């Protein structure tokens, strides 16, 4: 799988200090709309391999990261650049919408 698993432990190393922008999918197993988003995110991980680091944070298991970024609704997709969240996309969206968000960040 092209997408990674981010945790409270590795978030700093993998996302904040990442050399390339990072897309983080905040999800949980009990969240139905997250199940719609997951396969789209996995596809995008492949499509943007090398340009964008893509991974998931299970909010059940990693409450600190979720609360640090004020997550109050899932799925929430945050895109980080230089350690900062620069784009937030909340709720299940079409593939095109996610791509638009990614392209926006990559062109910054």
């Amino acid at each position, binding site marked *: 799988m092209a997408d990674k698993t981010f945790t409270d432990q590795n978030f700093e190393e993998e996302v904040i200090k990442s050399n390339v922008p990072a897309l983080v999918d905040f999800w*949980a197993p*009990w*969240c*139905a*709309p*997250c*199940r*719609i988003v997951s396969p789209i995110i996995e596809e995008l991980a492949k499509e943007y391999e090398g340009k964008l680091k893509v991974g998931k944070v299970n*909010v*059940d298991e990693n409450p600190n990261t*979720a609360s640090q970024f*004020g*997550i*109050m*609704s*899932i799925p*929430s997709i945050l895109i980080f650049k230089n350690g900062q969240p620069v784009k*937030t996309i*909340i*709720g*299940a*969206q*079409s*593939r*095109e*919408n996610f791509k638009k968000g990614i392209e926006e960040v990559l062109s910054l």
Partner: protein
Amino acid sequence: MYDVIIIGSGPAGLTAAVYTTRANLKTLVIAGGKWGGQLMLTTVVDNYPGFPQGIQGPDLMLAMRKQAERFGTEFIDEDFSEGDFDSNPFKIKAGKKTYEGKAVIIATGADTKWLDVPGEKEKIGKGVSSCAPCDAFFFKNKNVIVVGGGDSAMEEALVLTSFADSVAVVHRSETLRASQIMQDKAKKNPKIKFLFNTEVTKILGDEKVTGTELKNNKTGEVSKMDLDGVFVAIGHIPNTIKFKGVEMDEKGYIKVKDHTRTNIDGVFVAGDVHDSHYRQAVTAAGFGCMAALEVDHWLRGQE
């Protein structure tokens, strides 16, 4: 060229697809970026026949989709953007492509109706939500309100009690619209209280929700309430805005004649997009079946 293009992938659209493919009609479902419809935002569904222990809404939809795929339905997981219904074959645009169909079934259902008060829109996902099963988790030991008085408001409130400290149901009229069984469940729960004759007039907070302004519509009294979450369950609006040339009623529901037909010959309709009355998964599925049978009949008449 498809025999039929079904726009929408809730119980109406997917049931229609099962029937049209089994009738050997080449079928495309424009499923949308978020496929599956309203049931994808629910937890357990206890009133869909055939599941004595209930079934999770998303699992039910996945099963319906697999059933439709088994008979050869094609799916496009893109949003419908526009349709040209002026001449047959109809041209249906989704994503970047245009698809042609001899017949169309509109089954786009309905979406959450928001309160439309100041402070709401920008705080969706920051304390404002329409999906307690998705978001209740983030309100552990917090105080929330649910706006609405129907079954879905009761369900949202009950889901929230597993996490929140207190849940107030805010309802604009004096009596609930919810079924007796749901009312009883909610009223029995010690965490849930009710504010009747009360409307939310403003949602407060900068970054996230910190409170609401409430107005008692009997006394006119305005008050403020500190809280962390506002769950909106005041009903739905039909997804019909993109259908030009298709007749609708004053509320935006598609006008139906002879059970499944629209004003355009060859364009049929099924489910919550025309039905403001029953709005059940099982009735939507039934309407999907009816529309599919009529499409099959209509196509034979065209030959």
